[in-house]
């Protein structure tokens, strides 16, 4: 599903070069649940951005579902993000003052799904994350845990190849965080491929495989 080969990312700021990723190679197959761990500055966020087609690498190649993402232009990347990747962010990133239902429909509207189908799917996914009675609440009327569940519903609507979660429990209390992890576990059981960034070990435990980064390199890659 994901095939990363000799991936490097170097940030140039004036004359200072910062190596964020240094010759990283790994593969993720269909149905895996991978946690990427590492201290801050280890390059895990950079890796996440590249895997999410939000950023491009300096060197190396990245194949997602057989397509070489490193060779695509801005609009093609947007298409990849829309159709193949489902994002779950640490800060939920819902549209402010917009209802849960409308938030969930955003990716589908960019993906050209007809309106009736959008509404049907959005309701279906909101029900799945247990928010059927909160559909018409705007994002500021929802708790953090509820907002993150809206975000998960939003990530699922386009039936993506992988779900990318960036510290999905980072802003949540422990109990709510565990609830969110249960949802991920369930999704993985249903066959979804999940790549999650976290620096909390008890959250990483939910994954089947843990990749640890240090100084831009893979320090450890083990089954859980």
């Amino acid at each position, binding site marked *: 599903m994901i095939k990363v080969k000799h991936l490097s990312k170097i940030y140039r700021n004036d004359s200072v070069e910062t190596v964020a990723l240094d010759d990283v190679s790994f593969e993720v197959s269909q149905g895996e649940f991978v946690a990427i761990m590492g201290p801050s500055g280890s390059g895990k966020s950079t890796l996440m951005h590249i895997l999410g087609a939000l950023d491009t690498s300096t060197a190396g190649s990245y194949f997602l579902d057989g397509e070489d993402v490193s060779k695509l232009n801005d609009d093609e990347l*947007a298409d990849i993000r829309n159709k193949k990747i489902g994002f779950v962010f640490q800060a939920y990133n819902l549209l402010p003052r917009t209802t849960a239902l409308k938030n969930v429909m955003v990716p589908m509207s*960019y993906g050209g799904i007809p309106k009736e189908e959008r509404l049907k799917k959005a309701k279906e996914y909101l029900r799945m994350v247990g928010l059927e009675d909160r559909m018409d609440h705007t994002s500021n009327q929802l708790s953090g845990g509820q907002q993150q569940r809206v975000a998960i519903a*939003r990530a699922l609507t386009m039936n993506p190849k992988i779900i990318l979660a960036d510290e999905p429990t980072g802003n949540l209390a422990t109990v709510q965080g565990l609830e969110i992890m249960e949802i991920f576990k369930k999704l993985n059981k249903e066959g979804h491929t999940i790549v999650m960034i976290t620096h909390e070990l008890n959250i990483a435990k939910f994954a089947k495989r843990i990749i640890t980064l240090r100084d831009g390199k893979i320090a450890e890659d083990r089954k859980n």
Partner: protein
Amino acid sequence: MELKELFLESLGTLTLNKMRTGLATLGIIIGIGSVITLISLGQASQKSVQNQIQSLGSNLLTVMPGAQRSGNVRSATGTITSLTYDDAKAIASSAQITTVKNVSPEFSRRAQVVAGRNNTNTQIIGVTPAYAEVRKVSVSSGSFITQRDVDAVDKVAVLGPQVVIDLFGKGASPLGQSIRISSQSFRIVGVTTSKGGSGFQNQDDMIFVPLTTAQKIIFGATNISSISIEAKSAEVMTQAQDQIGYFLLARHRLDDPSLADFSILSQNDILSTASSVTSTFTALLSGIAAISLIVGGIGIMNIMLVTVTERTREIGLRKALGAKKKVITYQFLLESIILTGAGGILGMVFGVLASLIIAHFIGLPFAISPSSIGLAIGVSGIIGILFGWYPANKAANLQPIEALRYE
């Protein structure tokens, strides 16, 4: 994403911040409103001037004295006393001039007029009976100046209705009473019908006396101020102008037309001069109003830039969720077009109302052309695109991670 959907979404975003949206739109409302008001007032005053000039008579040619050159020095028109009553008589009786219907020599000057305890300063105009024909003047009571009055140098006067009101009060019948013009007593023999004119050369505010009386008794002059000539038809106006010109040149013993001590104005000349003056003014005023429109456009751009900065995270998120550049550009462009479009429509309503009210109060005919409405909507749309383009592009070119990280 369909355009209709984007439109509804932009509309939704704009209604979230009503105060800001309202203020941004206000700039365009004022800009479009003042452009429309000034254009329509300009057109109205142009129409009004045309009506006034046409009400002075039809197929009218005016011979004015002066504009004589000596060497390169050209004197001001009207300062030369080169036209006489005899010139007018000669034009009227000449066999060479075939295109002229009526010839009205005139002598006009302002003077103080006294009636009992009232007095006024008004235009005294010495005329012959032909004046009534040429200038389409009729009397509502009594009679106009007759040839007999002119020949006998009678001290009789025909008053315009405004003069009657000024000297005798509203509704008074001054026939047979007397007024004093420059210490001479005049018997009132007629009152003219109101023409309802206003502004320059108000024909209701004049006193008509026999031409000879004006020259010899009131002002002590031998010349006349102008000759109004009615041509036989509109088609022969140019021909009449030529015939009179050559006739007068010969009569004044001038070989070179450039040395002419008179000038002949046709009504069309006056009309086009007046029109060009009013349209210049209209253009000038509209230009000033257009500046406020540009300022309004810059206001829109400013608001859109603030909006883009404020919504950087939202833009980043939308891009992360698969929005292409084009969609983001359209979204922000639509917002600014909606702002200016709404401003344009409201400004148009405001402009039409304002010009209706102003036209009503200063007594101009109300004129609004469909072209100025099209202009308002077109211009505001263009301003929306022009000033929205840069902010929209800025939004579309944001890098999704930078935008997502933005706090």
